[in-house]
């Protein structure tokens, strides 16, 4: 398959060139956050507090890695199911978040937010936690350390293999792909 190489922070011109079904290799910094961290993000915003990271033009990876062995950067780090973050994602997109990485279908509200705020949703292969760990070159907990696997981590990735699922043109790989092979 043809592979498109992209880097963070995500510029609009790059997002405009991404179409559902494409395979991409992502390099740069991304941030992990899943259920508990998202809840804290939104609670902080409700209280008028600042988020523990500047999400403008950044990508959040829905991931809770397994513990790193001594001498290793990270443990297995595949995606978790994204739909549990659907309640929070549109708000973050409105604040400038440009990319989300996870697995599984998104709600209509998230798909609308992707179009409205020019964002993108990537799928990482669920259950390929060992493979995905090989693209992580550094990992640092930057917030909510007490949440263990759910803490917010800044990962540096090199050529992380992803597929574009929802693009700004309203395409959805889950729908078109399934429709195409349905008998």
């Amino acid at each position, binding site marked *: *398959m043809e592979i498109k190489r992209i880097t963070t922070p995500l510029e609009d011109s790059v997002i405009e060139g991404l179409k559902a*079904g494409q*395979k991409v290799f992502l390099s740069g910094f991304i941030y992990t956050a899943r*259920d*508990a961290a998202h809840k804290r993000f939104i609670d902080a915003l409700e209280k008028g507090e600042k988020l523990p990271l500047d999400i403008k033009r950044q990508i959040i990876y829905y*991931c*809770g*890695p*397994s*513990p*790193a*062995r001594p001498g290793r950067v990270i*443990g*297995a*780090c*595949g995606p*978790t*199911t994204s*739909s549990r973050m659907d309640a929070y994602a549109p708000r973050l997109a409105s604040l400038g978040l440009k990319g989300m990485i996870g*697995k*599984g*279908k998104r709600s209509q509200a998230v798909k609308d937010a992707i179009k409205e705020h020019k964002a993108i949703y990537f*799928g990482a*292969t*669920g*259950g*390929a*936690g*060992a*493979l995905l*760990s*090989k693209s992580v070159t550094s990992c640092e907990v930057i917030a909510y350390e007490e949440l*263990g*696997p759910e803490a917010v981590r800044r990962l540096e990735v090199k050529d992380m*293999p992803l*597929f574009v699922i929802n693009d700004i043109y309203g395409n959805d*790989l*889950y729908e*078109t*792909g*399934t*429709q*195409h*092979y*349905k*008998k």
Partner: protein
Amino acid sequence: MREIHINEIVSAIEKLFIDANYNLSDNVFDALNKAVEKEISPVGKEVIKELIINANLAREEHIPICQDTGLAVTFMEIGQDVHIVGGSLADAVAEGVRRGYKSGYLRKSCCDPFTRKNTGDNTPPILHTKIVSGDKVKIVALPKGGGSENYGEVRMLVPSQGKDGIKSFVLDMVTKGGPNPCPPIIVGVGIGGNFETSALLSKEALMVPLGERSNDPAIAAFELEILDEINKTGIGPQGYGGTVTAMDVHIKMMPCHIASLPAAVNIQCHAHRIKEITI
């Protein structure tokens, strides 16, 4: 009476959960290799290739196959001529899980249902015991991730719904899950018994090796019929579209009440981690 010391159980459980999470069994590995041949979607093929590379990397570099190293589902068949000595069996299983998840660098994914506070050591395990004849103890470790487990359900069907009812129930669960339970999936179907045994049967069905058919020819044919229907949905590997949505379907069945048709579906992801030992 044969005596088995709990220390032996602790150590077996510790090793099984580590082994299961790092070393995909040959049976599942072969099924992935068959799936990559069978899949016609280029994206689908690419995904399965990633899964094969992933399984090799996990084994060679000691990285868990998936970061969701699961709740520690443990099945034990205990021979009635065995006397467990040295302490409580339930405590021994929990201790084995505690040690395995710590020394194996496995993720602790067990928490309080409401406060969501992590128990910290992946205990308590989910332990199922059965008393059987003989003087051996068989232990099966089936670490089970949340993504696939979330698409399980028990339904008390009406007897008149019969096989068609079961088939549409399974297809309903598979399409509802779509990409979320990490296809290509394995589907366990429990039929009969009562409310709780149907659920247990569906999980036991997941323990049948991939490619193995039910002893009952009619049920074996029904398994293949459901598998074929699932693979016509188009969901494909990771839900990106394709012809291999499921790698296998297994049915476990037992008689039920004259008024009932209990059925359960338990979905397993492609990272089907299972290891067993007989002591």
